[in-house]
């Protein structure tokens, strides 16, 4: 095994001495190198969640609509009409830092496989990105390449990219974040599982051939701090092939339609090692795997390389022997290599052969459930402080102009127009507003989906930041008129072995859990990415939350754009807001400090209910959630998106940020009905739609000027107009 190092092998593989002896006890002898390599990967944070699993237990994961909670490749919820959607978000941070284009592309490829492994046709991709400040040429290059990579894969496989988010903050400069979410559609009765079953059934590998891609990717790239010597990690770059990825989607869905597969599992981190272990574990069976049968792209690969290779575009299936000829034929129709590489056994052991010789014999349970689970020592970071005092905003107009042109707020169109938002002919509300709305053709139903996180707010107050991420994603969905139904999430944090990071992680999870409970949102899937740091400096704690909501009638979807002159503009909800951690504080006062206010979760829930009811009654012309940049920016965005001005002299606290507030517009005649619906929920008239200026309280700016600054900021930074 080619891990040259003075220290014992297990340590260079990232295992502690204590973990090493646990392995010995678990298998009742010294593991050989092959077995040790497999353990080191399955017991890594990336595959085994050894530092985060206990904390994840805090999430509510059940609910009437949940068909599949955490534990499978993706979560699945019932959305009515006999339909279900699968959802999951996953990180590809470190691979993207090493090779931005391929890292981002294979990130998208990976999350797609998690979705169709559930038997769902992928219908929507979203991406959540973090980079350093765009003033730096390196960061612009990184940003540009990542966006190209995300677009390249999604565009080629024909899955609409309907949303996401991007922020630019110094702490991400050396550790960018690339999280990709996918939503898939399936018949509620047709869930697939990864659980292998039926001794004698065949283990089939299909898709691309296996090469040395990403050898050590999981353990080296994902579970150790990322620093200077990225050079040493270069050989393990994975190359994505979206063309094969597309064939893999169609071929897999065809196999399922024909009822030919008993179980399905994608090959992701740690390749065959983790896939075979997960399938055997989920089915409570054993597997015999013959590595010499795996079709190789490169000659003379070592058994351990074949076992842990992260070559992309591969799937594993369990097939009944009599079905194999049909499987082989269907794969051939899609020009896919398919090979029987092993079979299901009763034993509960993962036995691996190579050229007739046993190379490993491991108890499945030890590999998966046996993974150590650690409690983390936590320390409250000293930086956490109380609220700031702020001088009154001196020049609101100048502040609004600055914010509209700041990378944190400016239009994301430069990104979204590089993505196919339309394939599938379901995109009712395109990216640019709050949540996207995708019709579940041929049903009249639609889902609304949003992906959000806010590292700055979480850095200032981890628990409230966690709450805020859930509230914002759910509120974005509610703005379209949809009822938020389920959550997926990706936890991007630093090294959890640092007590302050552990505190951030635990507190953010607590905040997310509290918000999910209050809003009745089950967490059905997610992913954890730790060790996001550079030279000992962690990233801002960044929980990223994806929410899917359901609309009974796609025709009633509401967008963020103002529609008609004369429509009344109102502020719905008045959750607590402040300038602490706001874009205003960062851009105009040049600092990020203070304490974000505690979200009012009951009010948030009432607000979402009000929006759904108002949309269902057809009372809303537009609804736009107030987040970065506060009320003034929300008003300006609705005006810019609608191409019509707004006169809202009654607007105040223009730049404060917080949860629980939405700007809506409605025909004058519908206002009484809205007031009635709102009940005790605060509903304040701010002004009216119309004119060619944006008047937000004391801030006044021409619509054309605002639009120009908002639309051109990022294209200009990126050097194309």
């Amino acid at each position, binding site marked *: 095994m080619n891990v040259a190092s003075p220290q014992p092998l297990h340590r260079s593989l990232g295992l502690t001495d204590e973990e090493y002896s646990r392995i010995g006890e678990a298998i009742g002898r010294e593991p050989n190198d092959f077995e040790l390599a497999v353990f080191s990967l399955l017991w890594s944070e990336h595959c085994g969640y050894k530092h985060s699993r206990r904390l994840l237990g805090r999430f509510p994961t059940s609910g009437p609509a949940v068909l599949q909670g955490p534990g499978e490749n993706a979560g699945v919820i019932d959305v009515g009409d006999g339909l279900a959607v699968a959802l999951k978000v996953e990180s590809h941070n470190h691979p993207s830092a090493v090779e931005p284009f391929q890292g981002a592309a294979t990130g998208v490829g990976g999350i797609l496989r998690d979705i169709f492994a559930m038997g769902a046709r992928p219908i929507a991709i979203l991406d959540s990105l973090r980079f350093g400040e765009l003033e730096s040429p390196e960061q612009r290059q990184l940003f540009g390449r990542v966006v190209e990579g995300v677009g390249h894969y999604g565009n080629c496989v024909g899955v609409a990219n309907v949303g996401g988010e991007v922020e630019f903050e110094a702490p991400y400069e050396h550790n960018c974040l690339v999280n990709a979410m996918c939503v898939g559609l399936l018949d509620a009765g047709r869930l697939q599982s990864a659980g292998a079953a039926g001794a004698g059934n065949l283990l089939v590998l299909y898709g691309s051939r296996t090469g040395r891609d990403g050898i050590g990717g999981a353990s080296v790239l994902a579970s150790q701090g990322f620093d200077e010597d990225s050079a040493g990690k270069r050989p393990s770059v994975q190359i994505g092939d979206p063309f094969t990825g597309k064939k893999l989607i169609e071929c897999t869905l065809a196999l399922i339609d024909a009822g030919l597969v008993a179980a399905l599992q994608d090959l992701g981190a740690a390749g065959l090692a983790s896939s075979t272990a997960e399938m055997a574990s989920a089915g409570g069976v054993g597997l015999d795997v013959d590595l010499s049968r795996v079709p190789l792209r490169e000659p003379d690969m070592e058994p351990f390389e074949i076992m842990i290779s992260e070559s992309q575009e591969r799937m594993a299936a369990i097939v009944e022997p009599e079905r194999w000829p049909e499987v082989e034929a269907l794969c051939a129709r899609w020009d896919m290599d398919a090979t029987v590489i092993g079979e299901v056994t009763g034993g509960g052991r993962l036995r691996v052969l190579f050229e007739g010789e046993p190379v490993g014999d491991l108890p499945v349970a030890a590999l998966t459930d046996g993974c150590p689970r650690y409690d983390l020592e936590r320390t409250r970071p000293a930086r956490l402080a109380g609220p700031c005092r702020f001088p009154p905003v001196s020049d609101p107009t100048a502040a609004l102009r600055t914010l509209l042109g700041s990378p944190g707020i400016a239009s994301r169109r430069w990104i979204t127009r590089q993505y196919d938002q*339309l394939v599938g002919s379901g995109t009712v509300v395109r990216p640019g507003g709050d949540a996207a709305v995708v019709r579940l053709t041929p049903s009249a139903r639609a889902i609304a989906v949003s992906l959000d996180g806010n590292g700055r707010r979480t850095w200032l107050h981890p628990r409230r930041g966690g709450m805020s991420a859930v509230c914002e994603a759910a509120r974005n969905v509610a703005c379209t008129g949809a009822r938020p139904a389920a959550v997926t999430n990706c936890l991007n944090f630093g090294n959890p072995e640092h007590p302050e990071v552990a505190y951030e992680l635990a507190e953010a999870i607590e905040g997310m859990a509290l918000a999910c409970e209050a809003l009745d949102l089950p967490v059905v899937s997610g992913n954890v990415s730790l060790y996001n740091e550079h030279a000992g400096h962690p990233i801002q704690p960044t929980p990223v939350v994806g929410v899917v909501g359901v609309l009974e009638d796609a025709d009633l979807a509401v967008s963020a754009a103002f529609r008609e002159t004369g429509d009344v503009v109102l502020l719905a909800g008045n959750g607590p807001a402040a300038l602490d951690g706001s874009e205003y504080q960062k851009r105009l006062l040049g600092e990020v400090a203070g304490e974000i206010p505690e979200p009012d979760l009951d009010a948030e829930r009432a607000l979402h209910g009000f929006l759904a009811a108002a949309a269902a009654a057809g009372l809303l012309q537009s609804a736009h959630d107030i987040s970065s940049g506060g009320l003034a920016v929300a008003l300006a965005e609705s005006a810019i998106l609608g191409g019509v001005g707004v006169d809202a002299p009654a607007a105040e606290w223009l730049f404060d940020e917080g949860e629980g507030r939405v700007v809506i517009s409605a025909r004058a005649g519908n206002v009484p009905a809205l007031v009635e619906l709102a009940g005790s929920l605060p509903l304040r008239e701010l002004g009216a739609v119309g004119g060619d200026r944006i008047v937000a309280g004391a801030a006044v700016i021409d619509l054309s000027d605002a639009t120009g600054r908002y639309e051109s900021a990022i294209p200009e930074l990126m050097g194309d107009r």
Partner: protein
Amino acid sequence: MSVRVGVVTFPGSCDDRDALRAIELVGGEPAQLWHADDHLHAADAVIVPGGFSYGDYLRPGALAARSPVMRAIVRHAGDGGPVLGICNGFQVLTEAGLLPGVLRPNTGLRFRCHDVGLRVQRPSPWLPQREPGDLLEIPMKHHDGCYFADPATLAELDRYGQVLLRYEPNPNGSVAAIACVTSREGNVAGLMPHPEHAVDPLLGSADGRVLLAGLLGLARTPAAA
């Protein structure tokens, strides 16, 4: 008579399912065509849909143009049968020699997805009830949509009235803002924007129905071309 419209599926086709659905919406009878078949399942008209056939490797459309089903489509076109190439399908038809010119990378060298204005240049059976000067709004989404043809070819396109639509504004550097061309006989047409994504006002536009209706019309009365 209901027109049977075959929609080709190559490995890597993405918009084939949308095209089949759109044909149904405009009253045609959709039929799936497979790249490896050398016949058209008795289709009266053919759509070569969008996507990334063969991953767009080598040149967009180059590998698909050499697949068995294309031989059947070339025969069908030779007999005057109507063929519509959309996006990647347009690229395939130029690579197969059924349409003049070639699609090259957008001059901005980026993929672009957004609605685009298309100005009608001349009356044509492809554009029923539309007159020169009318504007269609249809989404586009491509990286290689920059239409190129040499001056001689451009002169011929004008002489024989083969340019049906021009971009307004030009989003990808296409020569003379050309968005949609036909074969000299008029029964084969190609464009980069996506009519099949523009058949329902709820999704932004229904202007795409025009070209699909044109395709059905041509199948009913081939002479019209």
